[in-house]
């Protein structure tokens, strides 16, 4: 459970409380007002007043059993953020095509709060994916997009970022030493692409390249990921030119969008 935020000086503390409640509900899915009262240490009437306010605003709704959950509203508002940075419209069509051509899953991510934040995804096919990585984050040090994004940092910033990262081992292949990771990133910078060699999960390999020129986000990464028995290292070499061509097309779309 995250601690309550401090509300210094000129800050509207009721807004902080309302947001704490929203995020608490987001963590739990469906909650009773008494759980909020208890876990956030708020008094009962505050919780009810905030829930009433949020319900009127259409951010939460209430089940017959008395539990509250988030509505679609936050999803709609949140979705405007990657759109506002031109991350979606300039890239989605290309991601779909890349996924279609390669038969693999394609991800699109940015560096946000020292993690890869996935803003879009395309899957090759017929059935809906069970996982839903859009809006979720993964570590920088063991994903191909993460390495590409690290490689974009200035050297000093790169070193500082690596120092901050936890470098958690996920598989025997995860790079957990700052020096090894640094050297890997230097290679990525030189090569212009990054490979995740089963470093986050033994079942998966990925390859990523950077996309430059977004407004605000500066750089993003796109990757092709697949099961290790299909996306072999040789296959990665064959996929790479297609991936690079896709990145070039997205960069062209961005230039067009900006000049439009």
């Amino acid at each position, binding site marked *: 459970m995250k601690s309550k935020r401090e509300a210094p000086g000129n*800050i509207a503390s009721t807004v902080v409380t309302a947001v704490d409640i929203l*995020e608490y509900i987001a963590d739990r899915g469906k909650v009773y007002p008494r759980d909020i009262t208890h876990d956030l240490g708020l008094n009962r009437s505050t919780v009810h007043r905030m829930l009433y306010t949020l319900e009127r605003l259409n951010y939460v709704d209430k089940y017959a059993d008395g539990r509250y959950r988030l509505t*679609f509203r936050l999803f709609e508002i*949140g979705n405007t953020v990657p759109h506002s940075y031109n991350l979606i419209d300039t890239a989605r069509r290309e991601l779909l095509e890349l996924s279609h051509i390669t038969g693999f899953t394609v991800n699109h991510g940015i560096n946000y709060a020292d993690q890869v934040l996935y803003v879009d995804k395309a899957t090759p096919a017929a059935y*809906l994916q069970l996982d839903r990585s859009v809006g979720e984050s993964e570590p920088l040090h063991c994903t191909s997009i993460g390495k590409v994004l690290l490689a974009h940092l200035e050297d000093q910033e790169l070193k500082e970022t690596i120092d901050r990262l936890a470098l958690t081992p996920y598989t025997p292949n995860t790079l957990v030493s700052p020096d090894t990771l640094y050297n890997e990133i230097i290679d990525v910078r030189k090569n212009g692409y990054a490979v995740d060699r089963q470093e986050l999960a033994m079942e998966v390999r990925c390859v990523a390249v950077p996309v430059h020129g977004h407004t605000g986000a500066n750089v993003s990464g796109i990757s092709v990921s697949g099961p290790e028995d299909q996306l072999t290292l040789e296959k990665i070499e064959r996929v790479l030119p297609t991936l690079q061509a896709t990145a070039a097309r997205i960069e062209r779309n961005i230039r067009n969008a900006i000049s439009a």
Partner: protein
Amino acid sequence: MLQHTNDGSNNSTPKYSPSTTVQKAFRILEFLSIHQPVKPSFIAEKLKLTRTNVHRLLATLIEIGYVTKDENRGYRLTFSVFKLGSRVPMSQDLKEIAKPLMIELGRIANENVYLTVLYGRMVIAIEEVRSHHHLSMNPDITYTYPIHTCASGKNFLAYLPEEEAAQILSQGVLEKRTENTFTTVEAMQEELKTTRERGFATEIREFSDDLNSYSAPIFDYQGKVVANMSISGPSIRATPEKLDNLVGVLLEKTRSISQQLGRSE
């Protein structure tokens, strides 16, 4: 199945008055979501708030991490709001409920099946099941559609009060995508009436000359259209005759989803 009692705000904790500060803060968040990046003076003017009020609420939203200042261009939402929004279980619930039914429908129809939501004046496909035909829809077709050009858009509009639908339609030009596109508010309103009476929407070469689509609305517990399920295919194959034959199954699926979202009929 979960049932809602909330059919309006009247019977939910009426003894509390809403917090006006929180209401203003969320009005600002919503305003930013549409206009970002935006200057405080513009927010104050459009939302009829005092400048002091706007600055205090922006400072609060920045402190929370939901808003950031974008150099000289103004304020905008951060990716924290995107992350928070992505955790809304309803979207997952909706997809989870819809997915098996979409697959069933896709198998029967052997055409692409989409789950769509409305965002502003755009219809967005959030899930799809592809047909197994070789001539399936081109993957580079865009996944967002102007509201007046697609079957799903008509359903979103058809169940709104007429003035509200007209207002949405009047917010911008109704781009003529094909000869069949409805390009006037009047013609659209006639079409919306038909759509409402029929219980499903059709799109015959209106978004693209190569594309036909039928769509059925998914209602939430309040009777609001929250999503649509549609069958789409190349117009030479997914003819109105073929789609007419599939619409019964389509409606069966959307009714089932609406029920699972708490709609009682």
